[in-house]
């Protein structure tokens, strides 16, 4: 029997282990993206509007951090959360919470940098009108975030894609503990090296399917709302 066939059977049979893994992966990634969005959207907007010495350097570093190697993020968060680390007392290492933190750190620069670019472009367009309408700084940020919501949605998707697909950080800080911190990507890595290809292939298929599904939904939402708001 080919591996693909048994992978499909695994999915079709509604294997409990498999779906627990899928659930955990989604929960971790969505939480991480949500946290990164709450911090990254205002931060990016602020950086787009603020003018201070060294701003260019901050922008360059932030853009550079979009390509942070996941293992380096994993290692850094590992050091922070390990028993002897500064946050060791919370005992978060090898828990889903640690994975959320690590993935949030990973996608925060992506969301913040893309937000900065989007908001800055829109600001160039809106500046005179908003100034003429006497809009204060907070109002400006709110207006710019709202009016670029569709582009920012894409930024969130980019963050989601990055977090959902990566394996290095969650492997390091989560530990790939069976039934507790095992995600789709770490399972694929593990099962492949063990030679259990049906499960690896099955999870791979589900992962790709989910990412396409979420992007398709986002595309639909974007199309629909653009027609309404221009």
């Amino acid at each position, binding site marked *: 029997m080919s591996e693909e066939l048994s992978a499909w059977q695994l999915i079709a049979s509604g294997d409990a282990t498999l779906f627990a893994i899928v659930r955990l992966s989604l929960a971790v990634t969505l939480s991480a993206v949500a946290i990164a969005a709450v911090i990254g959207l205002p931060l990016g907007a602020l950086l787009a509007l603020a003018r201070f010495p060294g701003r260019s350097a901050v922008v360059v570093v932030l853009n550079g951090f979009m390509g942070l190697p996941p293992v380096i993020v994993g290692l850094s968060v590992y050091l922070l959360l390990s028993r002897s680390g500064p946050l060791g007392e919370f005992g978060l290492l090898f828990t889903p919470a640690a994975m959320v933190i690590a993935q949030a750190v990973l996608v925060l620069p992506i969301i913040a940098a893309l937000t900065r670019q989007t908001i800055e472009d829109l600001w160039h367009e809106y500046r005179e009108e908003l100034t*003429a309408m006497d809009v204060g700084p907070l109002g400006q940020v709110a207006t710019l975030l709202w009016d670029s919501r569709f582009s920012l949605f894409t930024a969130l998707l980019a963050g989601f894609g990055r977090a959902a697909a990566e394996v290095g950080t969650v492997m390091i800080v989560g530990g790939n503990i069976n039934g507790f911190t095992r995600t789709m990507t770490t399972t694929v890595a593990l099962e492949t090296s063990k030679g259990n290809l049906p499960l690896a292939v099955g999870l791979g298929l589900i992962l790709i399917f989910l990412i396409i599904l979420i992007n398709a939904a986002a595309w639909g939402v974007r199309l629909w709302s653009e027609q309404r708001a221009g």
Partner: protein
Amino acid sequence: MMRAASSDLPLVLDRVSLSAGPVTMLDCLSLTITPGAPTLVVGPNGSGKTSLLRLCMGLAAPSAGSVSWGGRTDRGPARRAILFQKPVMLRRSATANVVYALGQAGCPRRLRAARAAELLERVGLLGLANHPARRLSGGEQQRLALARALARDPEILLLDEPTASLDPAATRFVEEIILMAAQSGTKVVMASHDLGQVRRLAGDVVFLVRGRLCAHAASGDFFEYPSTPKAAAFIRGDLVL
């Protein structure tokens, strides 16, 4: 919306210059704008019409000299509105654009919807109220921007060639809205290079050439007795450089 007791008029530009790097947009220009019929600002391209309007709005600070509104140089833009030559539509519906301007102008939330509908009707866009503003045609966007400017219930309304890209019918429509605003007590200051339009609308005419005030006269006098050779040439339709 209640008007504050103090007034933005007269608007006084006192020996104002505006330059960016080596480029001088306005050069030692003095001008007093008083209540009354519309003031039309004319002159060739690059003569400083837009710069003058931006100074009047308070969007730019003069490099030299001073701009004062009702005797004060520190007055915010609360009682002024400007219509840019290429207005930028917010990425929202036509109504939402007007509602936004109303909100910024301090209109109470519960009155905004009704007031926005009123303004849209005034500019002939009620039928397109729910359309995305950025999908409107150029002329429609211009009228929506005018509604947005009027939403501020301005004492001074600054208009930068609002009909430059419009056909005669649309131009007439916009001119009627502007005249209506002027008749209800708004001071209109409008840049134009359409002499027919200047004749139709102007109470007084400000003629700029290369950032300098070349003439400032009542409309009739400007056309009948041009005070400078350049003004005379401009009125004849000759090229003024």
